[in-house]
């Protein structure tokens, strides 16, 4: 029960982060929203594993956290390129 409620809470956090990413003043706000979204997905995977009573698939959560991090770094890296050369 608590697990399910936590799932819903995390999902709503994700929805809010998505809303932030969709309409943001600056590109950095978007990235911020997306980063929050990414970390919460990793949490949600773990929660869903417990909810479906098969928590041994946490490897996926690791991948999510990892890919989220790499995606963030890539965004920052390539955004620096366009920021300097695009203008």
């Amino acid at each position, binding site marked *: 029960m*608590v*697990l399910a*409620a*936590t799932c819903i*809470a*995390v999902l*709503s*956090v994700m929805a*809010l*982060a998505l809303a*932030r990413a969709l309409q943001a003043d*600056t590109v*950095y*706000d978007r*990235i*911020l*929203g997306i*980063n*929050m979204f990414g*970390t*919460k997905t*990793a*949490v949600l995977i*773990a*929660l869903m594993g*417990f909810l479906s009573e098969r*928590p*041994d698939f*946490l*490897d996926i*959560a*690791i991948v999510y*956290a*990892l890919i*989220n*991090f790499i995606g*963030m*770094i890539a965004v*920052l890296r390539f*955004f*620096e390129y366009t*920021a300097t050369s695009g203008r």
Partner: protein
Amino acid sequence: MILETISNILLIVGAFFALTGAYGLFKFPDFFTRVHAASVTDSIATILLFLGLILRTDFDLVAVKLVFVLVFVLLTSPTASHALAKSARHGGVATLAESNNKDNTDG
């Protein structure tokens, strides 16, 4: 039984922190305070939620994996936020105080 209760409390508190973070994403006035809201709550919520989940395991491989994910997130998430804030700073995003000053001098 006790473990489960503690776990439930941890999960609820964690969810609460996660929600406040998301709320802060909209309510704070400038970018750097929003980063603050997002990243600090992110860390505490992740810690609490994962601790809550660890208490629900039989302390086997699953718990080890959970700890691994937790450590991983705790390493990467603040780093990403830090890098983001730093990039924003270099990219010329002004803090609230700065933009206020600017408004004053302009006016």
